[in-house]
């Protein structure tokens, strides 16, 4: 047993607990930005540390918790997402009247949940990690006490989330019942296409699709994304989704690898539905968070489609896409946070004339959105290409066509935002000040999106190494 493999997780727990303790002893009027900085530094340190873990592949406590390249890759994604979220939410958090310290601590708990999911190698660990993340997110979504939307979103998320957890669990119980084990490898070894397994499979798909906000299990997402505090929305979109994918990969490609014949058609339909519904509904949104929510539904569909390839190329595409989606999302939400702070609204109309108030933010938003749409030469295009090459090679041409077509239709509503920013008149002449960390996040997102789009190889290599860990 090698406890060093757990060092990241342990560090995060310690950091979270420390934050809570610091918060206790801090003067009441303190803005708690210092806590945020501590959290950010801590996460950054863990992120840096995680790179040293490459090469040390191993398991802890039996086979239940595995640290391999795939897990590391996902952990780094989560760490980066959380780090960037913390950085751009300083201003946002300072508006809370209380519980600022707990906010950062809870973020770290959520991060821990995700990290456990990334390493989970059996269904119980999956469940625990998932629940840590989910429960913390229920809290965080309802965290904005001033905003009645926040609590509404929280309770909706909680009820639907718990119900879907129950469904997932029920599914897990069937799998356990037939195979007599929870470990992915043993499940795979004892697999047979019996009704019980298929039932379990169906219920597990339903449970995961809820977390991934795949149509038709997506209906919570718009409401929750809209109501949640914006940084939490961002983390939900980036982290919670990516974590669910981390689990999905192992469950479907390790445990259920033998049942591909059964799950692939179902997932392909779900992926297609997500792309279509996410995009056509997003057309109608007037609030940017809600629009991004629908967009995230569609993006989840894209990422999910990579699973259909059921090979390293497909997984690589998914991983690649997850990263670029994170990068684009973080940029978009950073801008949303800045605009929301400035104008108090997340309506698309609030973005009018942003290009004149802050060309950088407008540019970041544009690049992020266009990248999500998948237009060359931005990262989103490279991502779609990786994904679609992989699945087209397996014969899912129809899905590729739907994917490309819908991604182009999605430009319609992305570009409405761009239009508002670039061509609409400025609504007021207040100066928009952007704090340093947020600007940093925006710049990072912008450069990363461009870089990945034009030179995707390094990230693809990384993703490839991670993907190979599954086989």
């Amino acid at each position: 047993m090698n406890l060093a493999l757990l060092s990241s997780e342990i560090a995060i727990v310690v950091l979270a607990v420390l934050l809570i303790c610091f918060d206790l002893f801090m003067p009441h009027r303190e803005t708690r930005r210092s806590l945020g900085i501590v959290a950010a530094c801590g996460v950054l340190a863990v992120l840096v540390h995680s790179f040293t873990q490459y090469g040390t592949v191993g398991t802890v406590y039996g086979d239940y918790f595995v640290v391999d390249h795939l897990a590391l890759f996902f952990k780094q994604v989560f760490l980066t997402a959380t780090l960037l979220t913390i950085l751009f939410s300083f201003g946002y958090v300072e508006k809370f009247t209380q519980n600022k310290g707990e906010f950062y601590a809870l973020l770290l708990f959520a991060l821990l949940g995700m990290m456990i999911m990334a390493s989970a190698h059996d269904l119980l660990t999956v469940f625990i990690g998932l629940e840590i993340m989910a429960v913390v997110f229920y809290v965080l979504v309802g965290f904005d006490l001033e905003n009645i939307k926040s609590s509404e979103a929280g309770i909706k998320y909680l009820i639907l989330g718990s119900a879907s957890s129950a469904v997932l669990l029920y599914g897990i119980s069937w799998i356990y019942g037939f195979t007599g084990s929870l470990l992915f490898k043993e499940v795979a070894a004892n697999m047979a296409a019996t009704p019980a397994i298929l039932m379990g499979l169906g219920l597990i798909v339903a449970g995961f699709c809820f977390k991934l906000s795949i149509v038709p299990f997506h209906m919570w997402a718009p409401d929750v994304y809209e109501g949640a505090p914006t940084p939490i929305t961002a983390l939900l979109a980036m982290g919670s989704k990516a974590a669910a994918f981390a689990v999905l990969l192992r469950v479907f490609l390790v445990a259920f690898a033998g049942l591909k014949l059964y799950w692939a058609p179902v997932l392909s339909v779900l992926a297609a539905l997500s792309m279509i519904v996410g995009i056509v509904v997003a057309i109608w949104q007037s609030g940017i968070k809600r629009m991004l929510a629908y967009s995230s539904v569609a993006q989840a569909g894209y990422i999910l489609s990579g699973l259909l390839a059921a090979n390293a190329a497909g997984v690589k595409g998914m991983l690649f896409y997850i990263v670029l989606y994170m990068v684009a999302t973080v940029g978009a939400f950073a801008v949303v946070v800045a605009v929301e702070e400035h104008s108090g609204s997340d309506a698309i109309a609030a973005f009018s004339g942003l290009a004149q108030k802050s060309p950088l933010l407008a540019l970041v938003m544009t690049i992020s959105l266009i990248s999500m749409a998948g237009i060359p030469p931005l990262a989103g295009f490279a991502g779609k290409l990786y994904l679609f090459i992989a699945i087209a090679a397996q014969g899912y041409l129809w899905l590729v066509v739907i994917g490309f077509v819908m991604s182009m239709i999605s430009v319609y509503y992305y570009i409405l935002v761009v239009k508002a920013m670039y061509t609409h008149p400025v609504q007021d002449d207040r100066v928009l000040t952007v704090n340093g960390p947020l600007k940093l996040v925006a710049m990072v997102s912008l450069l990363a999106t461009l870089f990945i789009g034009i030179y995707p190889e390094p990230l693809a290599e990384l993703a490839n190494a991670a993907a190979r860990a599954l086989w």
Partner: protein
Amino acid sequence: MIGLAHFLAVAAIVFALGLYGVLTKRTIVGMLMGIELMLNAVNLNLVAFSRFITPEILTGQVFAIFTITVAAAEVAVGLALFFRVYRDRNTVHVARLNTMRW
């Protein structure tokens, strides 16, 4: 002879009843109760499998314990959120929770 199938059948019925509760109840607490029923059905499933499929390793029972833990955590957070909503709006009816839609 009572066997695995019977326990599973009971669990299925309870799960379905929980499902029905979640989908029909008007208040948040009612829905949460439905969820609890579903989780308990799962537990029954797990324990039954544990007994009949892997009697010498109690994986199912361990899982059930964790499920109970998680259920407790969910209920705690759920009720806390329920208070928030109730304070915010002075209602417990889910149908009124539609500030955000479309």
